[in-house]
């Protein structure tokens, strides 16, 4: 395993994108950075700009308005960039599946690396998902 990949998995900067979620996943995501869970121990940081991102954490079912924006945001992130689908809405559109304003599911639009189910997922589940992502990257796709 090369140095670049090792460094990447040791300092993942997460850009948090809400594609029309109900805010529960967002709150649980922020819980990961509180003293009880403290993911900064593993070098994970929330950052403000997409240009600094190593991972996009996407919450919410994608509606027709947010699909083009989501593609744009993914295009703006420097590669290699991972996509994390956080919450059942982002994974499989949950109860919005046949809704009139919901388009394609997330994994038809962006290459999703890890799915974190749950409504909302507990912070433990989010951390477990990120551990799976790190394992996957280290073993090389």
């Amino acid at each position: 395993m090369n140095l670049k990949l090792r460094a990447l998995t040791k300092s993942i900067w997460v850009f948090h994108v809400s594609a029309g979620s109900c805010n529960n996943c967002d709150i649980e995501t922020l819980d990961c950075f509180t003293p009880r869970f403290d993911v900064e121990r593993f070098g994970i940081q929330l950052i403000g700009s997409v240009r600094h991102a190593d991972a996009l954490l996407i919450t919410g079912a994608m509606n027709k308005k947010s699909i083009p924006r989501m593609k744009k945001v993914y295009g703006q992130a420097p590669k290699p960039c991972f996509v994390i689908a956080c919450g059942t809405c982002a994974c499989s559109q949950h109860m919005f599946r046949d809704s009139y304003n919901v388009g394609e599911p997330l994994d038809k639009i962006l290459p999703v690396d890890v799915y974190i189910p749950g409504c909302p997922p507990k912070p433990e589940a989010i951390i477990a998902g990120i551990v799976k992502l790190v394992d996957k990257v280290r073993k090389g796709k």
Partner: protein
Amino acid sequence: MKSLFSYLIFPGFLFSACVGLMAGWFDRKVSARLQWRIGPPWHQNFTDIIKLLGKEVIVPKGSQLTFLLSPYLGLIAAVLVATGLGRSIISPLASFSGDLIVVLYLLTIPAVALIIGASASRNPLASVGASREMKLVLGYELPFILSIIALIIKSKGVIQIGQVIIYQSIFGSNFFSLSGALAFLVIIFCMQAKLGLSPFEISEAEQEIMGGTLIEYSGLPLAVFKLTKAIMLYTLPLFVIILFFGRDLSSVFLIAKYLMLILIIVLIKNTNPRLRIDQALKFFWGPVTLSALIAVGLALLGR
């Protein structure tokens, strides 16, 4: 050859970058402990830099060449200051007369580089950040230079860093006088603003303007900006130690003083919310400049 060595390796780039990154880790660890967290491992900042070197560099459409060149401008200036200060500590009289003024100029250049880079990136939020940084520079430079003038008067008008050190080793540290203590108080605030830390991180406000001046940077240029910041975190406290606590600069005392100063910076950072830009300007041009002027007056009276 020897000057190249000292620029690139020992008191210069490599050494100051390592110390600065470790100081950055100290900052993050202490912040984490203050918030009852555990905090990152010691190699975290090195890992961040290595990771950024491996990322893609995105250049926004229509941005100028200055977008990619300005990070290096800041880095070169910061490394030059680090080299000069390091050499002055090792052999105080090797430098030329007036290097204090050169250092004062060079310390402004990283902020100027940030402004140039942000303006070249054609991003509205970056231009907001650049304008804030510009106003902040105008705000803190006046009291910063005034308090250093107070020190120059205090040490009988020498403008060479080595001679300031020698003066203090004979007559005692500048801090232990009325004007020195006041000037130190002023310089603590200016240092906070120069480092872009919390009450004055107005130009970079992550929650508000999404990274501000650094918003369009990714990969290598971002890593260079982070390195510049780390080197400034090494250089500025060292500069302040030389000016105010220059009596005993043997290595143990130097490290202890440096850690104390970083601790003060981190505590200020963690206990103060971010100010608005107008509040910061009022703060710097009001009470802080006034105290600096009083310090100059006291120094003229010989206190």
